[in-house]
């Protein structure tokens, strides 16, 4: 039966999509085109139900409603996949942001401490470092 092949291919495609690196604008475009197709198909199926059943029969499914259910399953899996990706990307960004903040705060506190300890020998706080990760060690030494 065609539907079995189609469904399995779709499930595999979603899984592969999950494991692969995040796609860019092209993926988004494809998603939007699919969404339009989905909306059109939904409209057609409401207005002319026999058409949907005919399409279902073509791929070996008895009723149009069943085909709709299968399509829904695939759409849901895709949704999980994309939102998982978006979430992990966001948490990665949050991590980077929090790290910068943490290192910056430590830098500011150290500079303040040095200003107190060595008021005569060191210039005041150096302001914000350009790149926290590469904050120069040498500039902090006497």
């Amino acid at each position: 039966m065609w539907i079995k092949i189609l469904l399995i291919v779709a499930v595999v495609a979603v899984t592969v999509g999950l494991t692969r690196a995040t796609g860019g604008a092209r993926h988004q475009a494809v998603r939007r085109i699919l969404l339009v197709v989905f909306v059109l198909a939904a409209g057609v199926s409401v207005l002319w139900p026999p058409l949907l059943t005919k399409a279902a029969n073509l791929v070996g499914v008895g009723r149009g409603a069943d085909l709709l259910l299968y399509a829904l399953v695939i759409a849901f899996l895709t949704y999980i996949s994309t939102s998982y990706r978006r979430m992990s990307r966001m948490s990665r960004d949050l991590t980077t942001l929090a790290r910068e903040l943490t290192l910056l705060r430590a830098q500011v506190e150290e500079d303040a401490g040095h200003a107190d300890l060595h008021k005569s020998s060191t210039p005041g706080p150096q302001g914000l470092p350009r790149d926290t990760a590469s904050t120069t060690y040498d500039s902090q030494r006497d």
Partner: protein
Amino acid sequence: MPSDLPDDDRVDVPADGLVHGPADDLGEGPADDLDDAWLVVPLYDEATVIGDVLREALGTFPSIVVVDDGSTDGSPAQARATGAHVLQHPVNLGQGAALQTGIAYALAHGARYVVTFDADGQHQVADAADMVRLARAEDLGAVLGSRFLDDRTQAGLVKRVVLRAAVWFTNATTGMRLTDAHNGLRVIRRDAALQIDLRQARMAHASEIIAQIARTGVPWREHPVHVLYTDYSRAKGQSVLNSVNILVDLVFK
């Protein structure tokens, strides 16, 4: 090498008294060869033990950076009282993220060797010191602790099976030949540490860090370490089920 400025902050630290404190080193410069090795200690809710762990470690390693990962039990205050450098993540981000922050900080402060060290007291300071000396003596880019190279470590059966599986997985994906994959005690030389970029914020970073060390191509070796499973660490330790999470994190990026 003169003690770096941040050490000055320790002068007015309440005495740690037990072993010889970092204050002993001030002025005449560090006597040991471990002054440029920075201990990186990710910290999350270990208030009952972190003070003792740090005080003991400071006797050997003058430079320690503790990265508090959003503890809610007052751990950072305990850590600060010992005189170690303490950074605080504004929110809980996971141990991998804390390690990365600590590594960045240590490198920015001129660390030649970065030593990752657990906060719960299951690692031995002497092992860490031996590993740094080994790295220096044999010019190694990384020395990785392994609890299976000798029989000092007493791990339960289930734990051993899970750890073996982790070793197998790590070896299969990185091409390295390790005997212990999820050991938190590691020494990484500066050039290799600069190339570490942990993106797995949660526990999967243990495999990730190995993979990234492998990719740098630096020479490395394993070193036998003793992991002390106390009732405390057993109660806190990760559940075996968590290995499922780790696997999922590694496969589904």
